């Protein structure tokens, strides 16, 4: 595939920024400077110091540890949600493309229906019915993203089906399922990958919003969104607390968006020519 060095900075900058957030988040699985939930009232609302590089919150919790664990929770939920929507949306989209006809219509109407429910509303409804939890957040974001993957898969697969090599496979007696697995999916994988990156970015944004409303993982597990909600009462005293978690969210999303844009340009030479 042709390289477009003038545009590739987007891809590599995206990789760098994403890693800058993902690596500390992943590290938090094994190690954080302090336990994220450890309260130390004597050390509350401290500024930058060698002991607490990013200071402490109103409960004396170490902000760096909270950010690492919070980013891990946000990214985990986003990954779970995207896995859910890919796991259901891609097979449904591929099925719609392979069968066509009324099944296609039915599946696409169904995806319209789901798309009418913004993830925040679904999360609010499910949290009201079942109580907020990580599962509810994943389900709500995943359900909203599902139609996106169903549509992208369908429209990409529909363009592959009439191609000669697919028709040849059909004539050789392969079933539609086998053709989908062996010929269609490998050919649309790059487009799906771009979508996964962009939807991960959106999922992190949505999770942040849910966390802000208290509809994501319940406390004491930290989320970046709830850190922002908590920081609002201390805006005048400690603006740092309202800036750092937002910055972490924005960087994670920006990194993934750059990565997605870069991937798209790299995979689609036609777009690559027009940065």
């Amino acid at each position: 595939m042709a390289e477009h060095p003038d545009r590739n900075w987007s891809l590599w900058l995206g990789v760098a920024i994403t890693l800058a957030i993902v690596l500390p988040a992943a590290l938090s699985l094994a190690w954080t400077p302090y336990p994220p939930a450890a309260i130390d009232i004597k050390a509350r609302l401290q500024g930058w110091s060698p002991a607490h590089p990013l200071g402490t919150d109103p409960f004396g919790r170490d902000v760096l540890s909270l950010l690492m664990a919070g980013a891990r929770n946000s990214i985990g939920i986003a990954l779970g949600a995207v896995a859910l929507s890919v796991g259901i949306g891609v097979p449904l989209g591929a099925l719609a493309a392979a069968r066509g006809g009324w099944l296609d219509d039915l599946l696409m109407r169904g995806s319209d229906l789901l798309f009418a429910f913004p993830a925040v509303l679904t999360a609010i409804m499910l949290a009201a019915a079942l109580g907020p939890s990580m599962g509810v957040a994943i389900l709500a974001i995943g359900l909203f993203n599902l139609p996106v993957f169903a549509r992208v898969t369908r429209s990409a697969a529909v363009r592959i089906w009439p191609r000669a090599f697919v028709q040849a496979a059909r004539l050789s007696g392969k079933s539609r399922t086998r053709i989908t697995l062996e010929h269609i999916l490998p050919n649309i994988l790059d487009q799906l990958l771009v979508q996964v990156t962009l939807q991960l970015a959106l999922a992190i944004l949505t999770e942040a919003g849910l966390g802000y409303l208290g509809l994501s993982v319940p406390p004491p597990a930290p989320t970046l969104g709830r850190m922002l909600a908590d920081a609002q009462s201390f805006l005048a005293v400690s603006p740092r607390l309202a800036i750092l978690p937002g910055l972490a969210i924005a960087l994670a999303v920006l990194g993934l968006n750059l990565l997605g844009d870069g991937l798209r340009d790299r995979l689609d030479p036609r777009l690559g020519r027009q940065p």
Partner: protein
Amino acid sequence: MRSLLRIAAALLTIVLASVLVFLALNVLPGDPAAVMLGTEARPDTLAALRRQMGLDQPLPLRWWQWLTGLARGELGTSHTYGVPVAELVAARAVVSLPLALLALLIAVGLGIPAGLFAATRHRRTGDLATMAVALVGLSVPAFWIGILLVLLFAIGLRWLPAGGFPGWGAGIAPGIAALILPAIALGLPQAAVLARVTRTAIVEIMRLDFVRTARSFGLTRTEALRRHALPNALPPIVTVLGLQFSFLLAGAVIVENVFYLPGLGRLVVQSVGGRDLPTLACLVMLLVTAVVAVNLAVDLLLLRLDPRLRHRG
């Protein structure tokens, strides 16, 4: 004919959505009568209350009564506030609608010119800078922009209120002053999305043969942009505006909470806190209907903007 089909599909979507909302808020949480009476309730008291609340009716009938009630404007009574939900919605909508409108104004007023600017400086510094700003803009959560705006304009400079709403009774100016920061927070990410879409659409159209022909006949770049590129770029822009509405709405729910605005979004969150499920069910239906209606309006508008669509299967 195609418009009629679209309208029918939209209505069907709303009816199906009502099934989902009914199941999520009336069936999933369990028996409201049992919740009200607690675990110690005697079976006959429970049965009486269930009869009184209409819970002994079969589920499909209860759903149908709820839906037809909504369609007639009978939204029921709020548990928490003890007033009709319709009144509550009306009182909150006068905050939420102007907020959404203001945000839309900011998004369109900023996003489309920015996209045009970038398109005319395609691949030059102005384009790259605008697109970099747009990419950052769409990566930043609206509610965090809200918090930063409060930090800057309310706490730092003390120009505007940090939150709350004086009510329109206090006059137009204080009302707008209370809405301006939240509208900026909501509008900026949308403007970023619009700028990107506008730029792509314009760049693609300016490449097409008919624009090149027009240019070779001596039309200036600006003229070609205004007469040919902009009208043809409208369909993708309008489509994205429609698709973004659902994000605008979700953003509004959160941003209203950042600024303590007594709007519909805050009512949604408050009704979760107060476990006021009947109110919540009405609100969710209202918002979902709004999303469906906006997308329907966009589809119908596209049919008008692009005559080719009318003849496609």
